[in-house]
């Protein structure tokens, strides 16, 4: 499990570097998702399975979908689309495929050692986390729900473009 943990850390570090240095927003996003999955693996090897599952389901699953939609809507890469076509050779896929394959191999290896010898360490399971969450951190839960509600209202208020911003441009187009 030690080697798995350190390999996951290495994958996360490489992916973070690639996110920061990426030219294409979509590539950066995919590397970011890979980094989140690698961190989930590290969480699992550190005996935090509930945090690992939340990392995969909520972070890599839900929050990153928001990013993907916004990148698609923005169409940021419009000047570089011809360059993109040049980049999309088969050699481009080697690094992402290698990183993803490393994660897959690590996951398989971790599961096989889990079946044969079991975790050699204390695992803090979802039950203990839930008990702690709803006994010691009840106020935190309430505040978190309020924060989510505020975020929902803010996004609902900010995201649609008001007519006062849209119409002048369209009118000037007609004229």
């Amino acid at each position, binding site marked *: *499990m*030690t080697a798995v*943990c*350190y390999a996951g*850390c290495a994958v*996360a*570090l490489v992916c*973070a570097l690639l*996110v*920061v240095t*990426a030219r294409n*927003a979509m590539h*950066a*996003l995919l590397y*970011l998702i890979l*980094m989140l999955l690698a*961190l989930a693996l*590290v*969480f699992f*090897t*550190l*005996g*935090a399975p*509930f*945090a690992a599952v*939340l*990392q995969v389901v909520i*972070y890599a699953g*839900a*929050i990153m979908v*928001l*990013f993907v939609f*916004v990148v698609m*809507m*923005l169409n*940021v890469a419009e000047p570089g689309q011809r360059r993109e076509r040049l980049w999309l050779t088969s050699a481009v896929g080697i690094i992402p495929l290698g990183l993803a394959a490393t994660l897959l191999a690590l996951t398989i290896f971790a599961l096989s050692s889990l079946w044969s010898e079991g*975790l*050699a*360490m*204390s695992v*803090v399971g979802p039950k203990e*986390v839930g*008990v*702690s*969450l709803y006994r*010691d*951190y009840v106020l935190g839960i309430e505040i*978190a729900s309020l*924060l*989510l509600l*505020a*975020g*929902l209202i*803010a*996004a609902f208020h*900010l*995201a649609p*473009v008001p007519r006062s*911003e*849209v119409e002048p441009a369209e009118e000037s187009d007609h004229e």
Partner: protein
Amino acid sequence: MSEIAGVSAGGVLSVAAALFIIGMVGIMVRRDLLYVLMSLEIMINAAALAFVVAAARWRQPDGQVMVIFILVAAAAEVGVGLSLVLRLYHRFATVDGDRISSLKG
């Protein structure tokens, strides 16, 4: 007791620190607001990793509780931040953080 099943807590903590630094450098270097938000996600995850390592070191569930709170904060931040980026793109037709400097007063 600083060893977690053969994994040294200091090693993973230094990985968290390195992730945090990478995210911080990304925020400072990149000007595209989407990359700034992504670098922010890297920094948030570095903090979450530090919490999980500390929780594993003392075998307490509090670290994972903190990860849940971090997830909530990150979800709210991403929702508001991305809707702001969308509005900026509609108004200025760019997501370059340097071009949006008309709020000088």
